[in-house]
């Protein structure tokens, strides 16, 4: 309905292959970015920033990472939490070694460590597929969790076995640590996420994205037309882990401010996987929708009774949240097994052909 596309024609391949070929989408994204970068920082409360938006953004990035691997390359991984942890601990060590280097640079760098580790744990993918691979990645998850506690060097021998985020400044403004304002951290997270997602979108529209999807859709055929499976799969593991690693580093440095091994446990991996699947495998947008739903819903549910004036015990609310979340997951899968992103796609398609049904 709002997609009035008449007159949007492409006279060059560059325009035809643009990320957002439809004008309305470009406007939409521009509006969203404007809101995210300007309106939100001006109006949102600290609670909204700290407990809703920053977590959603960070988790979206992790979900994007997993989506690159699972949704685009078809390799199911349950090691996301571990890879996020690698990023977080790497970042912590980097801040120790290079205390004067810009923290944002270090956060991004820590992604490379995660990528390296991810590649190593991606090696089994050369021989095994599907759920077998998923179980193999669990090995990564548990092994890494174990390392995070068992190698005290990683957390600078802190007695608490946890990593504490030091206060780092940029242009005289505290960026990390307790004194950094929510808005600052939010803007940094937003910028990093936006940039990395843009890069992911670029990758997905180019050669690499296509080879990944080819491997996902039919790896044998892909091999026979000259795609080297092991390179492709390992690259997918590396890039995916890079994203997870950066997300992990941001999670600690720009969101929680502190973390220990348990912050990156198996449940974290599952949570990210939920986000990806509920959001939509093979959709970058889906990663955001999934993260927003899986993270946001419990918060909404938690505060709903207050708002509605009901006095329900917090534990009951939490238990009900589990049930509701579970039911919703099943419900969404039944309504649209391909996730929220597909729902959006369908909705968009409806709007494009409105008033027709197809």
């Amino acid at each position, binding site marked *: *309905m709002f*997609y*009035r*596309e*008449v*007159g*949007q*024609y*492409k*006279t*060059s*391949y560059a*325009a*035809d292959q643009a990320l957002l070929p439809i004008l309305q989408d470009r406007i939409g994204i521009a509006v969203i970015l404007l809101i995210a970068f300007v309106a939100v920082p001006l109006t949102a409360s600290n609670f909204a920033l700290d407990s809703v938006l920053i977590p959603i953004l960070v988790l979206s990035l992790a979900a994007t990472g997993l989506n690159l691997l699972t949704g685009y390359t078809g390799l199911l991984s349950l090691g996301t939490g571990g890879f996020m942890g690698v990023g977080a601990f790497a970042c912590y060590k980097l801040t120790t070694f290079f205390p004067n280097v810009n923290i944002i640079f270090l956060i991004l760098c820590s992604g490379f460590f995660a990528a390296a580790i991810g590649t190593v744990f991606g090696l089994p993918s050369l021989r095994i597929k599907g759920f077998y691979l998923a179980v193999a990645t669990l090995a990564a998850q548990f092994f890494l969790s174990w390392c995070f506690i068992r190698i005290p060097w990683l957390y600078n021998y802190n007695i608490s076995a946890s990593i504490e985020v030091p206060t780092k400044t940029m242009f005289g403004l505290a960026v990390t640590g307790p004194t950094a304002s929510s808005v600052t951290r939010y803007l940094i997270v937003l910028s990093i996420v936006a940039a990395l997602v843009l890069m992911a979108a670029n990758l997905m529209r180019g050669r690499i994205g296509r080879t990944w999807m080819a491997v996902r859709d039919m790896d044998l055929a892909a091999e026979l037309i000259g795609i080297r499976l092991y390179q492709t799969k390992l690259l997918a593991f590396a890039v995916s882990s890079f994203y997870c690693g950066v997300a992990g580093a941001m999670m600690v440095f720009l969101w929680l401010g502190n973390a220990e091994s348990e912050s990156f446990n198996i449940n974290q991996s599952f949570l990210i996987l939920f986000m990806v699947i509920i959001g939509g495998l093979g959709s970058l947008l889906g990663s955001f929708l999934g993260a927003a739903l899986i993270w946001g819903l419990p918060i909404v549910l938690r505060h709903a009774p207050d708002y509605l004036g009901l006095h329900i015990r917090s534990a009951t609310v939490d238990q009900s949240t589990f049930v509701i979340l579970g039911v919703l997951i099943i419900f969404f899968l039944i309504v649209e097994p391909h996730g929220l992103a597909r729902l959006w796609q369908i909705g968009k398609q409806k709007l494009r*052909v*409105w*008033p*027709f*049904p*197809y």
Partner: protein
Amino acid sequence: MAADIGALDTFPKLLLHHAKVRGARPAIREKDRGIWQTWTWTQLADEVRVLACGFADQGLKRGDHMALVGDNRPRIYAAMCAAQCLGAVPVPLYQDAVAAEMAFPIQNAEIALAVVEDQEQVDKLLEILPQCPTLKHIYYDNPRGLRHYAQPQLASYDRLREIGSEAAKRDPGFLEREIEKGAGDDPAAMFFTSGTTATPKGVVLTHHALIDRARAAAEMEGLTDRDVVIAYLPPAWIGQNIFSYAQPFATGYCICCPESAETLMTDMREIGPSYYFAPPRVLEALLTQVSIRMEDAGRFKRALYRHFMDVARRVGGAILDRKPVGMAQRLHYALGDLLVYGPLRNVLGMSRVRVAYTAGEAIGPDLFRFYRSIGINLKQLYGSTETSVFVCVQPNGQVKADTVGPAVRGVELKFTPQRELLIRSPGLFREYYKNPQATEQAKDAEGWFHTGDAGYLDADGHLKIIDRVKDVGRLDDRTLFAPKYLENKLKFFPYIKEAVAFGHARDRVCAFINIDMEAVGNWAEKRKLAYTGYVDLASRKEVRDLITQCVEQVNADLAADPELAGSQIHRFLLLHKELDADDGELTRTRKVRRGYIAERYASLVEALYAGKESVHVEAQVRYEDGRTGQISADLSICDARSFPPAAAREAA
């Protein structure tokens, strides 16, 4: 009476002019290889220069004819202009014609040189080569599949360009000289009329005629070089040629060629033409699609659509005509525009259409009003090949469903006692090529062109066409019988694709009906009605009942019109096959050839009038792959209720 059209009196001169003043503006866009490849006016002029030199080198001379066979492609239009540069006359031929149909024009015009699109056209020309000894050169645009063709006549378009560029290098001033030699009164192009009856006639049109008419209409509609037209009808048809050659050359606007027939809708949606032409058949097909797709929509959308289409029917036309409409209604319409009309225009690719024309045959008033009501400025125009199209055009704000508007600047109209329309205009053709007898018949000594259409001017001076003079008939009781009017009324129902009405010199009106396979098929699926194919579907009782309802509604409408109340349809049958141009039942422009049909299906007509319940037919049909087969079926004949005339009812 030739109006002065200034110094730019030929198309080649216009081309050079555009290349100079708006060289960087797009002249032609073609969706090719996935994107809209753009030819600017400069590029077009360069291409034309090379081609013209090539043609000259190959022996094309002033006054020669050159054949063009192909779809709307920039190169076809470039070749057309290149020929004109040399003073040769391009003869566009229908690309979907069978080989045999091409022989006559080529022989008639002694064509030596042809530019064709692809292997398909090459094959056709090679097939008739023995009958057309004059044909010496065939240039093909797309070399696909032609690699091993060894005929000496064949050469590729690219080869022609090579020859041309060399020639151009040898004599750089050649083209300008040749163009200078051209004058407005030179023949610009020759179009063969599709010839519903006799052999085709080559209509010779001068530069002057085409340019004058193109300008007259462009001025009237305020066309500029910013307008965009989508070229999708055969270039051999004068209508398309006017819109995709004469008018862009006159005004400098851009034409766009779709990628293929399958992608036309998408391509049109992408390009968003601002100036659009469609014969009623196309508009009808679009509306049928709209109706079908809306039927598939959910209940809410259907209700929304129905509601707002109601609003549109009431006030849409008036708003478009800038007539006074109440504020509440305007708001209501604006809401509809947001929710329904705007999106509808968008999916039809017509959001940007400023001016849309329909012509070629009478358009059903409901169909016509539909487009106007959703805010598309659809207007009727009247014209023919012989008149360079523009005779009458409905001016903005004075649009009526049943007229074709007043005469365009420069046109004089008058009527014979038999109500035949005569025309005198600067756009009139020069002659029928090599057919002085026919020329004489059509164009009298005073320069009046006899159209063969029956009509009259209404109170506002708008021309109203009833039918062909020879088709307008009378029932036994002298009641007026205008078959096309009835057929159009029937065809407005999405379920009816074609209708043929009989009644002249009979006691009542009967009709053949072709159901619309897509629409009825859809309808049947919704009712879980299984069917195997067209014949089966058409023989279903449910379908007959559906069509009976349609016919009865037409009858009810007719009853309200005192003049036509007597020509209500009493009986009809659903034909066992779809009428087809390949079987000669339709013209290439898909007009019903009523006489031929009446002859071919005489037994069916007799059965209708004999009051039989059903009739057995055996017929040969040609399948799409060219094979033929035998159909044998019993067709049921249905009776439709008729209604007393409104006047009678009022009296009662």
